[in-house]
């Protein structure tokens, strides 16, 4: 009998809640505490927990290294692109007010997209560092 049955079953209960909480923190950041950075860290922590309990290959099947290493610069690109679009629509760099038909909606869209950029980079950087460490250890 495997000795880590308790861990595996408990992780199955906790992991969906962690990922859901990460999404809540991400998309509810306008009204509650949190934002892209916190959500990215929580999501990365849940993947790391999955890797610790079910092994690195299982985690790599879910989030492959190639995806992670593409996401690291992608988040910065999303953030910077939103800034440049702000310039193209007739404002300064990172000026969101013209992104939609009125100022409030433009700001909300800008903040929403920028937070996604933050999430993508933070999530993938945490995972990339973890993969780099554990990949060496298991060699």
């Amino acid at each position: 009998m495997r000795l880590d049955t308790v861990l595996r079953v408990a992780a199955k209960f906790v992991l969906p809640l962690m990922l859901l909480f990460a999404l809540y923190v991400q998309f509810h950041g306008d009204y509650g505490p949190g934002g892209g950075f916190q959500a990215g860290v929580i999501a990365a922590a849940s993947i790391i927990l999955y890797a610790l309990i079910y092994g690195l290959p299982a985690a790599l099947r879910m989030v492959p290294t190639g995806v992670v290493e593409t996401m690291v610069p992608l988040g910065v690109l999303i953030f910077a692109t939103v800034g440049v679009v702000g310039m193209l629509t007739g404002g300064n760099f990172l000026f969101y007010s013209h992104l939609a038909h009125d100022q409030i909606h433009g700001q909300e869209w800008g903040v929403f997209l920028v937070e996604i950029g933050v999430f993508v980079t933070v999530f993938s950087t945490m995972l990339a560092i973890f993969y780099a460490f554990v990949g060496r250890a298991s060699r």
Partner: protein
Amino acid sequence: MLTLLAAVTIGIVRARDLISVVVLLGAYSFLMASVMIVLDAVDVAMTEAAVGAGVSTVLMLGALYLTKTEEAKPVHSVLLPLFAAGATAAILIWATAEMPLFGAADVPVVLAGPDYIARSVPETGIANVVTSVLASYRGFDTLGEVVVVFTAGIGVLALLKRSSSGGPDDNAKV
């Protein structure tokens, strides 16, 4: 809670087994997160709990797995490190003398706060002022932070990936 923090810090300094140091650092991060909640900084507390206690503990344990877990005996005299630490502490304490008093009314951080609180909802429609300041009013700073995280990530990848895969540098020595 600050007393507990001090106790954990003394434990970290006195411990010689690096695994217990890592575990104590995790405990320190959770205590620090509790301090942040007491100070009503929930965002910082979330980050501290997730990064400080969660992810960095795992990374430190991963690093320990690659090295020895016992702290090495010092080979040099302790005088020079002691002097460096003392000098740094003196500079930091000297620098705090220029800081405004805690809770003083005429410092920029207090003066700008009500302005942002008043402007956030009418200008951006975002009720959480922390988010609107971070992502909109101070968006450029946040972009800089994301670039810092990005740089840290590619730095670690550049260091660890190359030396583990046996790149051209390893072959040049042979």
